Structure formats: C-alpha cells, structure tokens
C-alpha cells in the first residue's frame, strides 16, 4: 500500500537525483579543500567532456567500458548476486581477445577475427566467473569474497603469462607485439568519415556499438524471456524460486557466465579497439567502477547507459581538468566516483524514508 502511493518518478528519478547532487556537492567541498574553485573546475570538466568532438569521443570511449562492466554487475545483481569480480573478468576477457588477435592477425581478415575476438572475450570472461559461480551455486561459498580473490588471481596470472610467454621479445615492457591492422576494431571516426560525417579523432571504436547492442539484449533477456523471469525470481525471492521449480544453481551459474562475458567485452574496447596489443593493467579499475554505474543506473540498461556516459564524462573531463590545472590529479575523479557509490548506493535510504513519507502524507491528505 505504501509503495502504491509514492509516484514512480520519485523512486526512479527524484531520489537518485538527490543522491547524485549530494555526491557532487561533497565533491565540490573536496575542490574547495584543495584550494580550487569548484565552479571553474566543473567548467573545465564539462568542456573537456562535451565541449568539442574529440572530447565527446573520449567520453563515449570511456563510457563503453562502463556500459560493459555496469551491465555485468547489474545482471548479476538482478539475480541477487554481487559480482565484484568484473575487474578480473575484464582482464581475462582481454587476454582472450589478445590471444585471438595475436594468433590470427597474420592469416585471417578482420571479418573473421572480429567475431572470434568477441566470442573469445565473452568465453574468457565467463570462464573467469565460472569458478566463483560454481562454488556459490553448489557449495555456498560467498561470491563477494571469491570474486575478490579471483581479481587478485587474474592479475597474477596475467603478469605470469605476459612476462613469461606473451611479451614481445625485443621490447622492454611486458607488452605483446602490436597487432596487424586487420585485427583492429575500427575507430568510429574512420567508420563515419566515408559517410561524410566528421567527428574528431578519438579512441571511440566499434566496441561502442557492441555495448549498445548488449544493452538491448540484456534488457530483453531480463524482462521479456522466461529465463529472465527465473532470474528475477531468484534475485528477489530465492525460496520462491525453489518453490517454482527453478534450478537455482543453473540460473546462478548462467547469470554469472553472462556477467563475466559482459565484463570480458572491456577487452574488445581496450585491447582490440585502442591498445592494439596485449598489456598489463588495461582494466584500470573499470570493473570496480561498474558497481557505481549499476547502482546509479538502478540496474536498468537505460540508466546504465546514462550513468556510464556520466562516468565517461568524469574520466575525460577529469583528464582535461588535470591537463589545464596541473595541481589537480585525475584521481580527483576517483573521489567523485567513490562519493557517488557512497551516496547512491550505501546511503540510498538516507532520504528515501522521508521523501516517501512526504508523498504518502500528501496522498493521504488529498484523499481526505
């Protein structure tokens, strides 16, 4: 009854909005604390993120990663699972992409490599999610802890592989050789220029389109298939899922495989799209940021796209900001990201009760 009287827009619009505003207000205080004018800083940030073609390109390039990891976190969340392992899954997904590109770029055309790389990203990412998923489903091991552990294991594994097996012999750093160009995901500015559309040079590439396709697929999967129905049942009421004869172990494992696969697509954007070689640490915290993105996007693909663009803007704008004001480091963006997680995640109930109370009272008053 109580929910019925609170308009929908309050829960999906007003409350998240207030939370984000609060996060930004506190971020503003951080700027004040380090002696910067927050308004001016915000100006650079917005200009850097949206002020010119190239900036927009960078924003969307970062957003691509956030869409993948945000979707990954949120689909698991829909099934009641907290996947903190996006970082590791993205890392291993990238490994899969790299292996495909390295082994086929001399012999195969792009049209063959691309689908194989996408499949490899999904399979490798999924494989990395499989063990925690299996242990959760069959042995009840807490998936939060196991996925954290698997992040560390992924990072050691990658170092081992890069240093001992995949490193380019002649180079210094543990990077693989650069792929041949037929294993590069085309840049969007290159794809669009034949059509006479000119967007600035940026790392934005075909992976962005893949990300949008993933959004649609995830949306349809969750809300319009029987499998999605089972997943949502499991996520909201595991006992009811058992009652309904849903094989919860199977759903748990599958949803984590999908989650891991989505995270693995970060590898398409980073390895195939931008770096064009396999290297260490390319995930750069995108997996963890996915948690913030999915919280902010209320676990809905549309929300996730919006949140991902916001985070992309923060990253790109933050780089611009650090470029213009050298006494600011781009890490300030990490602070903002953390504050967003705090206010729209951990403190989501802070105002909820009061705001809902307000609308309930108002509705009650109107009834009389």
């Amino acid at each position, binding site marked *: 009854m109580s929910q019925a009287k609170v308009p929908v827009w309050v829960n999906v619009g007003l409350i998240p909005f207030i939370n984000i505003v609060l996060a930004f207000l506190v971020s503003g205080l*951080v700027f004040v604390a380090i002696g910067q004018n927050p308004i001016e800083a915000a100006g650079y940030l917005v200009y850097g993120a949206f002020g010119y073609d190239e900036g927009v390109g960078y924003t969307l390039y970062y957003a691509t990663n956030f869409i993948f990891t945000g979707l990954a976190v949120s689909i698991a969340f829909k099934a009641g699972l907290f996947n*903190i392992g996006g970082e590791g899954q993205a890392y291993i997904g990238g490994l899969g992409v790299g292996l495909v590109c390295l082994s086929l770029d001399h012999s195969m055309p792009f049209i063959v490599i691309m689908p194989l790389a996408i499949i490899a990203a999904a399979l490798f990412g999924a494989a990395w999610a499989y063990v925690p998923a299996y242990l959760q489903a069959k042995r009840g*091991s807490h998936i939060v802890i196991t996925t954290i552990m698997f992040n560390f294991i992924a990072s050691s594994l990658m170092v081992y592989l890069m240093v001992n097996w995949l490193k380019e012999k002649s180079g210094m750093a543990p990077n693989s050789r650069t792929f041949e160009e037929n294993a590069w995901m085309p840049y969007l500015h290159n794809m669009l220029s034949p059509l006479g559309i000119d967007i600035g040079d940026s790392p934005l590439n075909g992976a962005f389109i893949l990300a949008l396709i993933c959004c649609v697929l995830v949306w349809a999967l969750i809300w319009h298939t029987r499998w999605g129905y089972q997943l949502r049942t499991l996520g909201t009421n595991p006992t009811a899922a058992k009652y309904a004869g849903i094989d919860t172990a199977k759903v748990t494992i599958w949803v984590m495989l999908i989650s891991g696969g989505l995270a693995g697509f970060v590898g398409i954007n980073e390895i195939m799209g931008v770096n064009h070689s396999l290297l260490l640490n390319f995930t750069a915290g995108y997996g963890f940021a996915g*948690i913030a993105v999915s919280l902010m996007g209320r676990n809905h693909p549309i929300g996730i796209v919006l949140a991902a663009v916001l985070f992309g803007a923060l990253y790109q704008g933050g780089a611009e900001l650090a470029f213009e004001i050298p*006494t600011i480091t781009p890490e300030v963006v990490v*602070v903002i*990201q953390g504050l967003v*997680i705090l206010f729209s995640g951990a403190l989501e109930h802070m105002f909820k009760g009061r705001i809902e109370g307000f609308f309930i009272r108002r509705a009650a008053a109107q009834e009389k």
Partner: protein
Amino acid sequence: MFDTLIIMLDATLRVSTPLILAALAGLYAERSGIVDIGLEGKILGSAFAAAAGAAVFGSAWIGLACGVLASIVLALIHGFACITHRGDHIVSGVAINTIVAGLTVTLGLDWFGMGGQTPTLSGDQRFTEITLPFADALRDVPVIGQIYSNLLSGHNIIVYLAFLMVPATYWIIYKTRFGLRLRAVGENPHAVDTAGISVAWIRYRALIVCGILCGIAGAYLSTAHNAGFLKDMSAGKGYMALAALIFGKWRPVPVLFACLLFGFLDAVAVRLQGVVIPGMGEVPVQLIEVLPYVLTVLLLAGFIGKAVAPKAVGRPYVKERA
C-alpha cells in the same frame, strides 16, 4: 639453512604485522555483524594521514594519532551508512575504498606537491627498531640466542603491539561484557536489542575499535615499515586481511596463524625470485603470490574445513517481525 630460516621468519613478522592488525580489526567489525571490505581503504587512509602527520609535526607518535583518527572517521562513515541508514555493507566498503584511493593522492598533491607522495620521513618521524635487552649479548648463543636476538629482537614497537593485540582481543571477545555483547550482536541482534542493549551503539563501538586497529596498521606501513606514503601503498593488504579473517574462522588465534602463513608466503615470494628448484625449474613468484587467495577460495568451497561466518553478518538490523 637455519640462518636463512631465521631471516625468512624475521621478514614474516614484519610483513604480517599490518595483516594481523587489519584482520583483528575486521574481526571486531564482523563479529558485530558488519562486513568490512573497507579495511583496505582504512589502512590506506591511515597510512597517508600518519605519514602526513609525522612529516608536518615531526613525530611518529603524532603521525600515529593522525592515522588512527583518519581511520576512525572512515569507520564511522561506514557505520553511518550501514548502521544508521541500513545501507549495504559491501557497497559502503567499496565506496570507502574508492574515495580513499582518490583522496589520498589528491590531498597529497595539494599538501606536499610531490605527485601524491609525502616527504620521506626520517629520525623521530618514524618508528624505529627496538633492541630487546641482552639481545646483543645473546647473539652468539646457538639457536635460542639466535632466535632471540635475530628474530624476536629488533622490530619496531608496532610489531610487538600487533602480536600483543592477539591475546588482548581473545580476552576482550571471550572474557568481557563488551565481548559477550559483541558476539551476541553478530549472531542475533534482535536478542541484544530485547535485552535492553543498543545494537547500534555496540556496532559503532566495534567499528571504532576496528578503526583504531586499521589506523595502527596504516601507520605501520608508512611510518614504520616504510618511510613515507606512496599512492596505493596498501596494495591489497586489506583484502588479504579479510582472507586471513575467513581463514582463521573469525577467531583471534587462528587468525594470527593465517596472517603469519600469508606473511610467510609473501616473504618466501620475495626471496624465491629467479631461484631454480632442482627438478621443478624456476618457480614463478606469481604462483606463491597467489597462494593466499587460492587457499581462501578452497576454504570457502569447503575443501579444507568450513568457514561459518557470524550469523547476522552483512544484514542491516531492522526492527521488524522476524
């Protein structure tokens, strides 16, 4: 051989000290029902505050105080989110870790202008090694003397403190009123509430203790083990401590041994680099680095015993019909 062993164990003590402190910190939090993956952030925040405080005021002790204070503040934020506003413990922990990772560098750059580091500490700005009485005299006595002088003596005060915290924690948890209530609140907060005790207040106190211990751990990193703060210097120790806490099944003494094991593996990893073991070839250090995590996963999977967490851990306490 014996000498090498002593050296490794000596390093083990140093490396496991922050783990022990952080794992005990986690023990207080989780025994009270609060999941704390924010250990990492608290260690990092304290390491920064301690180094900054020591650099500015010229005293390691003031640094320690700053570190502990910073860590308590972070613990209270966690409490505010999880206890007062019934937020998700994991989300709050992730948030704190993220905020601290960014804030330390941002403030560091603003205050010291050295790329987010603090100035290098020296002299009184650091905790230095203490030589135990007669350590020099006994150095040449075989075995016992060696152990005493080379292994037990010559650590800084925080190392000794960390090891003292283990029996102290045991005593607090099992022999005091606070401990009884702490254990109860992690198992069944309703029972505590109806016994006329404030659930929130016990949990806040547990988090404050957690903050203090993490604060000491962080100060150890930047003002004792090292000489200054570096970006991301906690390097996963908080997560490692969490793993040790699970490995030790939320009990002080087993947790100590888990930390020592992890510390030992770390010490071995440092020294095994490039060492060729006959018949096996060169051991990849990554394999040893990864062992604590693999062991924890195996434990959680029930392959090496069962880890049963406090029953109410991670669940926000709401007064409602059970």
